[in-house]
C-alpha cells in the first residue's frame, strides 16, 4: 500500500491543475458567450464580472499547479516552471503547459483577451499529452465537455466574425445646401403681394 502522504505535493499539484483547467474553461466560455452576444442582456454585467474573477482565479491555480509540483522531485519541472521546454521531466508536454501559463499571464497583464483562447487550447493539449489522469473517465467527462463546448463557441465566434466584415469607412457627406429662406411674412410683402 502506497502512503498518499509521501506524494502529497504531487497530488495537490495535480488537483490544482484540474481545478485550474475548470476555472479557465469557465472564464473562456463566459467570455465567448459575451463576445458572441449569446449571453442574455440582463445577465451580461454579472457574467462579465464572473469571467474576470474566474480568470484571475485560474491564473493563481496555474501558478499553484507548477509550484506544488516542485515538491515532487521525480516530476519537478525545475527551471521548466518558467522557461518553456526546459523541464527535465516530459519537456514537450510540460513546456506546452508553461507556454500556456505565460501566454495567459501576459494576456491578463496586457488586457489582450483575444490571446486567452490560444492559451486555453495550449493548456488542453498539455492536459491530453501530459496529464496523469487524462486516461481516467472521471476527468475525461468534465474535460471533454468543457473542451467541446468551448470549441463550439470559439467556432461560432470565428464564423460570425469572418462573415461580418468590418464596416468600411464612410466618406464624408457633401455639405448640405443652405436651407431656402422662409417666405417673408405677409406683412412684409407689401400691398403688391396679393
Amino acid at each position, binding site marked *: *500500500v*502506497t*502512503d*498518499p502522504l509521501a*506524494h502529497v505535493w*504531487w*497530488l*495537490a*499539484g*495535480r*488537483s*490544482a*491543475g*484540474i*481545478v485550474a483547467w*475548470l*476555472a479557465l474553461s469557465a472564464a473562456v466560455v463566459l467570455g465567448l458567450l459575451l463576445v458572441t452576444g449569446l449571453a442574455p442582456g*440582463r*445577465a451580461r*454585467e*454579472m457574467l462579465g*464580472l*464572473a469571467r474576470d*474573477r*474566474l480568470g484571475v*482565479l485560474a491564473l493563481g*491555480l496555474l501558478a499553484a*499547479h507548477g509550484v506544488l*509540483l516542485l515538491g*515532487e522531485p*521525480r*516530476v519537478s*519541472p525545475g527551471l521548466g516552471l518558467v522557461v518553456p521546454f526546459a*523541464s527535465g*521531466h*516530459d519537456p514537450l*508536454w*510540460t513546456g506546452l*503547459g508553461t507556454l500556456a501559463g505565460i501566454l495567459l499571464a501576459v494576456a491578463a497583464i496586457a488586457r489582450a483577451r483575444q490571446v486567452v483562447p490560444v492559451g486555453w487550447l495550449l493548456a488542453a493539449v*498539455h*492536459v491530453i499529452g*501530459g*496529464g*496523469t*489522469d487524462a*486516461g*481516467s473517465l*472521471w476527468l475525461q467527462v468534465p474535460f471533454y465537455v468543457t473542451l467541446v463546448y468551448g470549441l463550439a463557441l470559439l467556432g461560432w465566434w470565428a464564423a460570425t466574425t469572418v462573415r461580418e466584415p468590418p464596416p468600411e469607412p464612410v466618406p464624408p457627406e457633401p455639405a448640405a445646401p443652405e436651407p431656402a429662406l422662409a417666405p417673408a411674412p405677409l406683412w412684409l410683402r407689401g400691398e403688391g403681394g396679393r
Partner: protein
Amino acid sequence: MSARWDPSWRRLLAGTGLLFALLVGLLAIRVHAGADPGLRRDATSAPAPQERALPQLPRHERRRLYPGAPAPPYGMPGQGGGALPPRVEPSPRLPDMRSS
C-alpha cells in the same frame, strides 16, 4: 440578476477550495488503493530500470532501446553462440509518474 448568482470572491474561493480538497481526497484514495494511474502499487518494489535484465534482442536493437545499458556480451543468437543470461520479462507495471 438576483444576488443569488452574484459571483463574489468569497463564493468563488469557497467553491474552488472545496473542489480542490475533494480532488486531493479522491486522488489520495486512489493512491492508497493502488489504483492511481501515475503511481502503480508495485512502483517501490519494482527493480530500477537499470537493474533489470535486458530482454534478448539483436545488438543494434538493444543499443537503440537501451542506450544507457552496458554492451551485451558477444554471442547473441545468430552471432556465434555463447552462454546467455536467462531472459527476464520486464515488469508490465512500471512506475509511470507524470507531471500533472
